[in-house]
């Protein structure tokens, strides 16, 4: 069967299955969310107003039999945090289930005339709108639990916490994991508020009896799948017992710290003396010592990398899942906090209330610099989540992220681009990632062009992190390739093995070509990725962005970062070269 677009209109509470128009037929995942947002959302609309939309799309290979690590769901819309286009993607249960229902994308639009809140149930028989007034104010842990009690077949639950209900700019969208915990997030950019503005608390997806995903060329798909699996299982980082499987993404903590690129105490240093205490090695040690929780956890069925974890407290009860590198950086090093148990408690609060952990940790760091509390005050930091849960005025300020909080507290050191704060790599010490932060249409985002691979990890080549030479081209190549992978449904972490093992890269592309019946080859990936980037870039231009928005914050230009004591001084013309092709090609 051909894939359908499921359009859910909240104004008149209707759901219609539309044939996928030719202009969107080749797209999935990020390529599809960005195409729909580009075509259907007025770039000048208010992100929280009636004319924004939330688009949800599984990737090309999501829901196919045993494509490895392919459970990413893309969420798109106009971002309340950046004012530009946003795609945030998540693991969890939703991608494969949406795909198996034959749905290419869900477009959530409009706002209920009666002002009521709804949950939406989707299965093979169609769409049901349910009164969600009993769910209002509830955290995602409880919402997930209620939904699994209410519906059969362990469905996917896509939802927002109280922060999303309040339409805060740092509201993420939660997706439940295989154990029905809310730790998987399309976190960045405030898309939870876009969902909240449609008055939708949760979307529940049950794929039982669905038609499944059509594979146009099964032989090619199987050939590609095998090559990709072989690469993942052979590479030291992604194989069983490798770095990601044994330590999770927080394997990076000690290493980025060693490189002098770990943002610490609101981006005032590149090294944190407490890094080891919040590292992936420490997570593994706690799991072993406390005889509870686990490393090597899969965030979605069929993942063979299994980089997630479940973190236990001192008494063996589970605190949170997962503790990522980004989480440990933002809620740890960047706040001067070196206690993993507190990082875990704050992560649990973020996952339950519906907050992006990166933006939240960076926001607490801003509040610390602004004098609300001291750097390193872990009890004080944890107590801030009570304000957020209750929705006090302070809590509402903090829920709106770094820039809002910096204004309120008079802080000028705001590590943001396009309104979104930076993740766990200091651009003054790792220049290529700075180019990505500055130029990606998403605002400061590492995943959109992860030059860390060659700059720090020696993956996909080896380049000096301290030089600017070649970084504009490097970042663009990564941004374009990433846009393709973000459209596939594959987890971005498959990029590590396939950047080193050419057959794996071919296999990834062949598996996509097999599903879509599309004669795409490895050499086409960058060009296809650029088609997506172009739409995103043009959307932002129409929303009012100029080259001046592709800049790192001013303080990074004059404040040397220890220990290397370097500033950001890449010429603006070099940055402007990254997307110059949009108007030339």
């Amino acid at each position: 069967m051909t894939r359908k677009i499921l359009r859910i209109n909240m104004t008149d509470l209707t759901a219609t299955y539309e044939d996928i128009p030719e202009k969107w037929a080749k797209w999935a995942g990020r390529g599809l969310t960005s195409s729909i947002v580009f075509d259907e959302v007025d770039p000048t609309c208010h992100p929280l107003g009636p004319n924004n939309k939330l688009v949800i799309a599984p990737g090309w290979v999501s829901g196919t039999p045993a494509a490895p690590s392919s459970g990413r769901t893309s969420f798109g819309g106009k971002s309340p945090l950046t004012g530009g286009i946003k795609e945030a993607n998540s693991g969890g249960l939703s991608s494969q289930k949406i795909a198996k229902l034959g749905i290419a994308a869900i477009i959530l639009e409009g706002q209920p005339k009666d002002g009521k809140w709804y949950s939406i149930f989707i299965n093979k028989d169609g769409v049901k709108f349910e009164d969600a007034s009993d769910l209002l104010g509830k955290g995602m842990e409880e919402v997930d639990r209620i939904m699994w009690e209410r519906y059969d077949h362990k469905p996917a639950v896509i939802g927002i916490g109280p922060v999303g209900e309040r339409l805060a700019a740092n509201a993420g969208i939660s997706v439940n994991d295989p154990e029905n915990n809310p730790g998987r997030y399309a976190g960045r950019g405030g898309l939870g508020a876009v969902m909240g503005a449609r008055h939708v608390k949760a979307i529940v997806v049950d794929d039982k009896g669905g038609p499944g995903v059509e594979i146009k060329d099964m032989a090619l798909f199987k050939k590609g799948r095998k090559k990709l699996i072989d690469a993942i299982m052979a590479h030291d980082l992604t194989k069983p017992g490798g770095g990601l499987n044994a330590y999770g993404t927080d394997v990076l903590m000690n290493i980025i710290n060693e490189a002098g690129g770990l943002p610490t105490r609101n981006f005032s240093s590149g090294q944190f003396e407490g890094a080891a205490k919040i590292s992936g090695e420490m997570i593994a040690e706690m799991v072993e010592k406390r005889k509870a929780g686990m490393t090597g956890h899969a965030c979605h069925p069929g993942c063979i990398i299994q980089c997630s974890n479940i973190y236990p407290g001192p008494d063996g009860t589970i605190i949170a899942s997962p503790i990522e590198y980004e989480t440990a950086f933002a809620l740890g090093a960047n706040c001067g906090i070196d206690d993993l148990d507190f990082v875990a408690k704050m992560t649990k609060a973020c996952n339950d209330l519906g907050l992006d952990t990166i933006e939240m940790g960076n926001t607490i760091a801003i509040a610390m610099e602004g004098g609300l509390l001291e750097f390193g005050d872990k009890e004080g930091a944890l107590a801030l989540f009570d304000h957020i849960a209750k929705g006090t005025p302070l809590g509402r300020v903090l829920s709106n992220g770094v820039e809002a909080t910096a204004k309120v507290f008079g802080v000028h050191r705001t590590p943001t681009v396009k309104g979104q704060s930076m993740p766990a790599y200091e651009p003054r010490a790792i220049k290529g990632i700075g180019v990505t932060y500055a130029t990606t249409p998403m605002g400061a985002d590492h995943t959109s062009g992860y030059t860390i691979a060659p700059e720090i990890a020696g993956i996909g080549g080896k380049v000096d992190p301290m030089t600017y030479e070649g970084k504009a081209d490097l970042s663009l190549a990564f941004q374009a390739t990433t846009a393709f992978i973000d459209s596939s449904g594959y987890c971005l972490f498959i990029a590590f093995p396939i950047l080193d093992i050419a057959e794996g890269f071919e296999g990834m592309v062949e598996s996509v070509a097999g599903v879509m019946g599309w004669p795409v080859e490895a050499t086409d990936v960058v060009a296809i990725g650029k088609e997506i980037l172009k739409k995103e870039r043009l959307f932002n231009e129409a929303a009012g962005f100029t080259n001046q928005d592709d800049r790192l914050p001013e303080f990074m230009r004059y404040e040397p970062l220890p220990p290397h004591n370097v500033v950001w001084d890449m010429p603006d013309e070099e940055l402007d070269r990254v997307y110059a092709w949009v108007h030339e090609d």
Partner: protein
Amino acid sequence: MRVEVRVFATLRRYLPELGIGEPKIMDVPDGTTFDQLREMLGLPADEVKVIMRNGLQVEPEDVIHDGDRIAYIPATGGG
């Protein structure tokens, strides 16, 4: 020459006496290269992806200096 050496993640099993992030303080002869030191420490060449001196990448054949802070790093990535 006195140097401090750190190993991370999957390489820690070769120096199990070290705590997480804890340096091994060592005296090495003048002219020792990073590759020679790696051998002395028993770290397999194919498991060392990156070597750092004072937070900056070096090549295996580069010569160690007195007082260097050295790190041997396995395949890593994530975020």
